[in-house]
């Protein structure tokens, strides 16, 4: 083989839960880069390593059960394979349950692309006394098979050897033959003759392409010639009529019949043993009465672990940046600058960087704990427990965890939507997360309700705001249900429940590091840009007092007054809300700057009535995700449309809710 521009391209393809990610990390170490697949929001991960003299690019494909797609992830995998066939395929099987994965393995092997099969989790299989016979596997599949443990590193040198040998000496693969009903075989034969005639130099086996055409009713990629598509359709109808089964199911049936036989022969035992430990744990963790309380306990620990540790660290970093800013302000190099330039550097750029940095602790802790939950296998259980509740909103159970964690901080929660299984759930969840009452908003509410309502009433106001936040999520979820086209198609909920496992430090560290890097690359620019925008609005035209009535922000506030007057918000608070776009907790500090004077508490008490204050708080709860959350939504959805929708939903619902509250309050005689 001769390497292309990026070296030899090896595609890593497997069904979910085979340890694919662990193997990817094992082979590439930390030399990974992430991007996205063209046109979709699915992450594309690739990494580099060398095999002897060959530079290798390893492309991690999303988990897929087959090349006939049901989900968006699977569509990505199919398109990649058929449009840009890799030089080599590395397929992963779970040694404890060959049958599950062999359907895909057989399909890949039939393609005729050079391929190596890594039989992973050999350590666990050995512990269960069910080590498969790799010679049988390899001779039936017609490709080399190597036993590995991605977790311990066992077998990795041998795997690299096998890959190297295949690159050095690309022997023509001997595609396996699987038995199918006679009419199907006849159809495959007829179509492959046609394919051979029209495209004789394809890298794929003609009968693999013929089967694909049949399975997808002619709608395969790249689009076949019209004559071929027509032939595929009419053959397809004939086969379906003769067998009485839909073709996709018929074809899957042929593959899995072969898979069952092969798995039985290779392991000399069927079916695989259930995992005793998992059974025992599930009896407690999924118990009819104990399951939910235990789940809530785990969530409490998770929340405390992330935010109990993270929020103080975040505050500490914030102080550090404030102190650093104050120190910088006194430096001769800066005092020599004109006032606006100094302010731009300190109140614009330095503050922007400070906002980005302040998210590091929570994001790091978030992903440490999320990896723990996910790698241990508990995530699937949590989704199972909460599925009923979330199903009402058109979501699956995992979304509950994302939404819950939004109550600490929206930013990592939005990043964490990556755990969800379909684009539909991901987008819907990231649009709902901004309505949760995060800790930054809480600071504002504690402060304002204390001043406006007194110590006795304030806790009830806070409680009411939490209820309002739950209600907002529910209402939004129901409102967004009909918007399926924008959000992507809902996918069938069939979730595999993996065995419990001990998470490894290595994979947690790798994941957390990767997420921090991603946040820095994808979100930081947008956050700093947002902070600078607010700085420009509040500090220009030159010469005015920052955020005063004469500044652009002040003028904007006054221009918007007709819009905010009906909901009882004055222009000064509008400017404060503008600041809140940077980070919600800044609202208080902004009010202090805008009102001027020393005693902020008295100022607020005289400027704002309790009813107006309540309207203001409701508005603050809903109005817009902060800039960091928007940046995270943009980074995760890769769509300005979704990001804009997030902004719009917030503004409109905030205005409506405040209007309703304020007007109802006035009618009832409050002020």
């Amino acid at each position: 083989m001769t390497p292309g521009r990026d070296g030899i391209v090896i595609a890593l393809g497997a069904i979910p839960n085979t340890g694919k990610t662990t193997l990817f990390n094992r082979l590439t170490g930390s030399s990974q880069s992430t991007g996205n697949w063209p046109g979709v929001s699915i992450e594309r991960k690739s990494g580099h390593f060398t095999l002897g003299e060959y530079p290798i690019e390893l492309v991690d494909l999303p988990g897929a059960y087959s090349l006939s797609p049901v989900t968006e992830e699977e569509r990505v995998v199919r398109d990649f394979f058929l449009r840009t066939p890799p030089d080599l395929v590395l397929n992963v099987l779970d040694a404890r349950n060959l049958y599950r994965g062999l359907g895909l393995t057989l399909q890949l092997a039939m393609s005729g692309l050079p391929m190596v099969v890594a039989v992973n989790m050999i350590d666990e299989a050995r512990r269960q006394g069910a080590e498969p016979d790799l010679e049988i596997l390899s001779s039936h599949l017609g490709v080399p098979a190597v036993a590995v443990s991605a977790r311990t590193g066992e077998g990795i040198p041998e795997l690299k050897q096998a890959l190297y040998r295949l690159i050095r000496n690309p022997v023509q693969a001997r595609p396996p033959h699987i038995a199918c009903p006679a009419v199907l075989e006849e159809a495959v034969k007829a179509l492959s003759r046609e394919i051979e005639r029209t495209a004789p130099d394809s890298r794929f086996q003609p009968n693999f392409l013929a089967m694909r055409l049949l399975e997808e009713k002619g709608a395969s990629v790249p689009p076949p010639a019209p004559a071929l598509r027509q032939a595929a359709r009419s053959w397809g109808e004939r086969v379906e009529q003769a067998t009485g089964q839909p073709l996709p199911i018929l074809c899957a049936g042929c593959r899995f019949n072969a898979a069952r036989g092969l798995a039985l022969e290779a392991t000399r035992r069927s079916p695989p043993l259930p995992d005793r430990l998992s059974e025992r744990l599930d009896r407690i963790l999924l118990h009819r009465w104990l399951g939910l309380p235990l789940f809530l306990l785990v969530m409490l620990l998770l929340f405390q672990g992330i935010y109990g540790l993270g929020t103080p660290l975040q505050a500490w970093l914030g102080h550090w940046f404030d102190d650093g800013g104050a120190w910088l302000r006194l430096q001769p190099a800066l005092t020599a600058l004109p006032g606006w330039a100094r302010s731009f550097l300190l109140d614009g750029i330095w503050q922007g960087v400070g906002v980005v940095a302040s998210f590091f602790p929570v994001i790091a802790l978030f992903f440490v704990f999320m990896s723990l939950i996910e790698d241990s296998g508990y995530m699937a259980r949590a989704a199972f427990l909460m599925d009923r509740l979330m199903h009402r909103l058109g979501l699956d159970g995992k979304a509950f965890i994302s939404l819950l964690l939004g109550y600490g901080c929206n930013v990592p929660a939005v990043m964490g939507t990556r755990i969800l299984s379909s684009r539909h759930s991901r987008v819907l969840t990231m649009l709902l997360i901004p309505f949760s009452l995060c800790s930054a908003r809480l600071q504002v509410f504690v402060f304002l309700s204390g001043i406006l309502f007194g110590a006795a009433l304030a806790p009830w106001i806070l409680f009411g705001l939490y209820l309002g936040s739950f209600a907002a999520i529910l209402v939004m979820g129901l409102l967004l249900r009909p918007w399926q086209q924008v959000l992507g198609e809902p996918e069938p909920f069939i979730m595999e429940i993996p065995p419990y496992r001990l998470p490894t430090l290595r994979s947690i560290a790798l994941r957390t590091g990767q997420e921090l890097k991603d946040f820095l690359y994808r979100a930081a620019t947008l956050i700093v840009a947002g902070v600078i925008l607010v700085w420009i609005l509040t500090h220009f035209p030159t010469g005015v007092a920052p955020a005063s009535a004469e500044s652009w922000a002040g003028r904007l506030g006054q221009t918007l007054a007709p819009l905010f007057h009906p909901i009882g918000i004055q222009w000064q608070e509008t400017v404060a809300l503008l600041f809140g776009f940077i980070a919600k907790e800044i609202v208080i500090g902004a009010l202090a700057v805008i009102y001027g004077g020393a005693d902020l508490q008295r100022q607020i008490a005289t400027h704002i009535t309790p009813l107006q204050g309540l309207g203001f708080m409701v508005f603050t709860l809903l109005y817009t995700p902060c800039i960091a959350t928007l940046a995270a939504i943009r980074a995760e959805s890769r769509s300005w449309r979704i990001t804009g929708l997030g902004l719009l939903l917030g503004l409109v619902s905030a205005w409506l809710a405040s209007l309703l509250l304020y007007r109802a309050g006035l009618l009832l005689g409050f002020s």
Partner: protein
Amino acid sequence: MTESDLFLPGSICILHSLGDDRQVARRLAQMGILPGSRLRIVRAAPLGGTLEVASDQGELFALRREEMAGLDCRLVAAPLTSPAIRPGQTCTVLSLEGGRAFRQRMTEKSLRPGSRIRIGEPGTHGLLVSDAATGATIALGRGEAARIIVGLTPGGTPE
């Protein structure tokens, strides 16, 4: 009784067809869950609505009740509390789904895998069955009955 009431924890069914060519059917087919597969309902989620299902090939997955009801999966075993089991029928105990204490208690009532029993009328607190050989009456609590799995003919009625 709706179709989905049939899928009580402990029930076993054999898949006859995946139903219409829906996405769920395709997804299951690609996971290797195909006509002929034996599915066992492991448990229902505490809030209901979602089932944990084990296939005979050792896969464990979660599925919503309405999806399960859309499959043509014919019961071959069910707990004694299943609506598929009617008074007057005779069937064989297949398994006792419980810890050692429960199995011990059932043995004392002379119930063990292989026992043939005749179903009596449901009482207010549980179920009366009788030993098909001796005719001796055995009183079972509802909780106990839910954990005794008996065989059914492929049609869904006791043998």
